């Protein structure tokens, strides 16, 4: 059963189908959303774009769910899919090593060159000890995603999943479509 959903794209943000008002677009919109709806998590500014999008989407989603208590739980999984893995972060990291004359590999950039980090950021923020995972398929496919998430309930403890599509090809091109799925 799907409870609550969030959509984020460079021009649009919707929570449970209802549009949120915002002044900015693209990467500055993400900062605006952070300041308006979160505000108490400065680690946001260390995140790459994929993690910012996924993190913000999860914050809006969990605010919609309500009763946020940040109590540790193991029965909620965070499972995302995308097409571009961590491309924006990869490109950024590559730029720190591309030129032998200006070679300064950045650990803060390197740590985000794995798409699953966004699921880790959500787990840390919410104290989720449950399953976190990330998979890549070259085209968005709702059927594949839904079937995979249903399968995740085979884990004996998982009862709830924050799942969906979180993708980003560069700082200004991203989208998230995530939802909470509860075990029937």
């Amino acid at each position, binding site marked *: 059963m799907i409870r609550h959903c969030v959509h984020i794209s460079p021009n649009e943000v919707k929570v449970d189908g209802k549009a949120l008002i915002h002044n900015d677009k693209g990467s500055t919109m993400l900062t605006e959303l952070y300041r308006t709806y979160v505000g108490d998590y*400065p680690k946001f*500014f*260390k995140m790459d774009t994929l993690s910012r999008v996924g993190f913000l989407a999860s914050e809006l989603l969990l605010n919609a769910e309500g009763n946020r208590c940040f109590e540790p739980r193991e029965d909620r999984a965070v499972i995302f899919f995308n097409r571009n893995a961590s491309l924006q972060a990869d490109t950024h990291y590559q730029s720190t090593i591309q030129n032998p004359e200006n070679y*300064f*590999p*950045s*650990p*803060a950039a390197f*740590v985000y060159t794995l798409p699953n980090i966004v699921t880790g950021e959500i787990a840390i923020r919410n104290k989720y000890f449950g399953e976190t995972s990330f998979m890549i398929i070259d085209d968005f496919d709702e059927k594949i995603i839904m079937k995979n998430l249903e399968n995740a309930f085979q884990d004996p403890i998982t009862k709830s999943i924050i799942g969906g599509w979180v993708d980003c090809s560069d700082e200004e091109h991203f989208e998230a479509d995530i939802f909470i799925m509860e075990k029937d």
Partner: protein
Amino acid sequence: MEELIYKLKQQIIEALNLEDMKPEDIDDNASLFGEGLGLDSIDALELIVMMEKNYGIKLQDPAQGKEIFKSVAVMADFIQKNRTK
């Protein structure tokens, strides 16, 4: 030295993405890790990169970082003595 300390604070803010901070917000002698600014292990590694990039100082052992990054004042002192840029 004061000029170095101010510049260093700006560089730290930039290197560590401390978006909402200004140099005035960082006390010269406040601890950077633990209680003070609450920086973590990745921040420490990033500061090592920053030291090399901006001042030509190479730290081979991350454990050295613990002593040098105690506070901005301690860092500035170390940089003053060891900079090659």
